């Protein structure tokens, strides 16, 4: 591991341990500024340039569901969301489709492992929350369904 990576990783670990949002370290002409907008997605800017654009944080867990009677199918892992097995093929599910616990609804890719995700619930798809290629977090809503009664 390079010295730069070690330094940045140490800073990130320090921030996580102490729940810090922002840390700036000045060492001679080098400056490291680390901002942490969420607990899971550290954003590093400016070595040594100032005012580098701050990149947006990875997707955040949405606020509590206000759609009455609907349930979420959530992501069991951190990764990248894909609605279909390949860019040219049909989505696993679409709005109006009925799913049961064993229906495959999407793929979440994490470190090149393509994980087929099952609905784990029965109902009708009302909304596809994520877009193909979108970064998703653990527990993030992927689909909204009207559960079977």
């Amino acid at each position, binding site marked *: *591991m390079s010295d730069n990576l070690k330094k940045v990783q140490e800073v990130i670990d320090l921030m996580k341990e102490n729940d810090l949002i922002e840390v700036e370290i000045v060492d001679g002409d080098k400056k490291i500024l680390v901002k942490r907008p969420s607990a899971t997605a550290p954003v590093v800017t400016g070595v040594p*340039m100032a005012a580098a654009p701050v990149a947006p944080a990875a997707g955040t867990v949405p606020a509590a569901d206000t759609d009455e009677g609907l349930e979420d199918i959530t992501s069991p892992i951190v990764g990248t969301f894909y609605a279909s*097995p390949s860019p040219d093929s049909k989505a696993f599910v679409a709005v109006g489709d009925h799913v049961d616990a064993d229906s495959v609804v999407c793929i979440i*890719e994490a470190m090149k492992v393509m*994980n*087929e995700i099952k609905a784990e619930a029965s109902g009708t798809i009302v909304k596809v929350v994520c877009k193909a290629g979108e970064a998703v977090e653990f527990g993030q809503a992927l689909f909204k369904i009207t559960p079977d009664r």
Partner: protein
Amino acid sequence: MSFEKLDVDIISEGLRTKVIGSEVVVFKNTSSTNDIAWEYSGNEANNGLAVFSEQQSKGRGRMGSKWLSKSGQSLLCSIVLTNTKAKPQLLTLGCAVAIAEAIQNCCEVEPRIKWPNDIIIAGKKAAGILLESRIGKGKSDYVIGIGINCHQDQAFFAKQKLQIPGTSIDIESKKVVDRNELAKELLGNLDRWVEIAGSDGGKILERWKQLSSQIGHRITVEFNKQRFAGNCIGVDPVKGIILQLEKGGVRMFEAAQTTIVKHL
């Protein structure tokens, strides 16, 4: 020119593995060895079964990209894993290490790993992994799909439009590799590293870092549908990759959500 045929008896003879290669099957032609392996995975007794094929009509890679091969020129293999304690990210890295070591032991070339799990020789892609999982309640099944370019010549790759230039073991070693010997070496290494993936993650990370090829190279990554180009100044197989961005700044990209799309 005709090459050696894959032979179950030669591959299995003297193979001393605990799980991987518990049974070996060879097909002359399949749609994709991963599809066949998924059919076998319904039965838990098939844990460790290795499916080889001389040819694939629908060989696939990540997200529908095609894995190209002509009959008899590649080592195409898929492994059924129905019972492993290994975490998926360590499994990915362990497989990359196992393939790199198998090629190194068998072929007198120096393979390296392109983050997180492509195998390159002299900067060109020689082997790839497609690891698929089906996550159910309290249980995950995996199929490890592996394609190693063996006997292809320069003309084969010159015709293809590839994201990363391709090469074969024969091109790089200037010899003709024996695919049965490579298959045996591959199963032995996979058995060892998949077991380590379930017990000693630190050992995998250490070996992976020794074989990694990224640091100091200019690369482009895709994260959350956006592309970022920069010089790689740090890499950690599980945490992520750190780039000195061309547009200024240093940024760490989370491993789980990032793909390298260009590597120079």
